[in-house]
């Protein structure tokens, strides 16, 4: 067993820079996912089949193909069609769109979790569709979705190592870089692993607090 503590400790500062980038990508990506996810969820419920079906197709397709490949695609192919995004934006958008497909399912479950009786009561009061959504359904659906939404921030953060393929210098890329300079891989990779795990644990702790605060639905 050989292990170089010097390199282990020296790796931290550079990897912390990588952590910052990973967090930036996560935050921006998550905001995209929250909004786009709701858009997906609502469009998929459209009564117009020519809206709901294509959106459904796209969502299912994105959901069932690897993020890694989608990132490649965004990073190398989009610019060929004259769409130019910074590397960080590409990463955030890749994560955001991918996770929007999951999050749309979370919203869907939240919306479907609103009892049928609530729709019927809204109808019995003749509330218009818009009002039904904004004052009856969504205010109940979103708290219902809150716990699962929290889980997806963590899941998304955990997927940032995949940004290695689009040259975004997050932690694993940095660790590999340190590795190819020093030819010592175990130490920086272990540090990266520790930082990922620690951050994810902190995130899930925060998510649990949020869940307790906002995730409770008043029973009717």
């Amino acid at each position, binding site marked *: 067993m050989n292990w170089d503590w010097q390199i282990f400790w020296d790796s931290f500062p550079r990897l912390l820079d990588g952590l910052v980038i990973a967090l930036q990508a996560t935050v921006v990506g998550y905001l995209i996912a929250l909004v786009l996810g709701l858009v997906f969820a609502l469009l998929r419920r459209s009564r117009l089949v020519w809206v709901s079906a294509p959106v459904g197709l796209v969502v299912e397709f994105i959901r069932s193909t690897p993020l890694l490949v989608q990132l490649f695609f965004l990073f*190398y192919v989009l*610019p060929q069609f004259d769409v130019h995004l910074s590397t960080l934006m590409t990463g955030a958008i890749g994560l955001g769109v991918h996770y929007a497909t999951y999050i749309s399912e979370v919203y869907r479950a939240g919306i479907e979790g609103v009892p049928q009786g609530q729709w019927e009561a809204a109808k019995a009061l003749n509330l218009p569709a818009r009002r039904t959504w904004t004052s009856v359904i969504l205010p109940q659906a979103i708290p219902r979705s809150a716990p699962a939404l929290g889980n997806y921030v963590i899941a998304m953060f955990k997927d940032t190592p995949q940004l290695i393929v689009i040259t975004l210098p997050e932690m694993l*890329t940095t660790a*590999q870089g340190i590795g190819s300079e020093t*030819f010592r891989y175990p130490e920086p990779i272990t540090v990266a692993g520790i930082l990922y795990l620690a951050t994810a644990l902190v995130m899930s702790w925060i998510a649990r607090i949020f869940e307790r605060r906002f995730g409770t639905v008043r029973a009717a």
Partner: protein
Amino acid sequence: SRVDLEATTEGGSLLDELRSRGNVRMGFANERPFAYIDSEGNLTGQASEVGKTIFRRLGVEEFVPKLADFSSLIPGLNAGLFDVIAAGMYITPARCEQIRFTNPDYNAPYNLLLPEGNPKGLGTVEDFVRRDDAVIGVIVGGVEQGIARDIGVPDSRIVVFPDQPSGFDGVLAGRADAFLLTGLSLRSALEARPGTPLELGPPFVAVVDGVEQHGAGAFGFRQDQGNIVNDFNRELADMKSSGELLEIVEPFGFTEAEMTDLTADELCSAPVS
């Protein structure tokens, strides 16, 4: 399903193992013209073909290609995932501490891969130090990253691509303004993509702190396998003097100019940049 890494008699017995197994696992990074999968799906390239010839001379007839990221070649070799690095890897003192190189079979200058017309007018690595809007692309785990850094390009303007094709796509996509690699690699890869709006800058020898950075490539084995390295060097020397080496590598764009008499020992002991 474990592989025992603690193999060892003095100088190693790899060749005997390979002979009895009948094949050799060659690690490469899919980089033209050194070692790559051609459009027929076969492993070929300068390093591959030289390696195959020498192994045949040593009595090993079968070749198992093992593809990896360039940066994963050394750890992969040391992790026992393959037997030899046959990827035209440059000899550098730092690498010599990790693996044992054979003598080099070529020595090549660098070029920049640029978008057609070279809109930013870039020529050498130094230009990237001066122009703070210029981003240079390198390959992950290659020596070029270190060179660019040591010459003074800040990290924020060095983009690290996972492999050579990504470097090409990266320049095309505007992810980098140039891609630094040996002219050999770049020329050969460009040939494979006729019609792409990319061009090569003039060749140059990078100088770091007054030391010339040679692009002299060789085969790499694990540190404890001195015996097979000696056998390899013997055959290589033979092929150099007979001219067979040049014959093998000419189809890949190599010329007399890239032939070299440098030795691994010389390159390994060069002052660290």
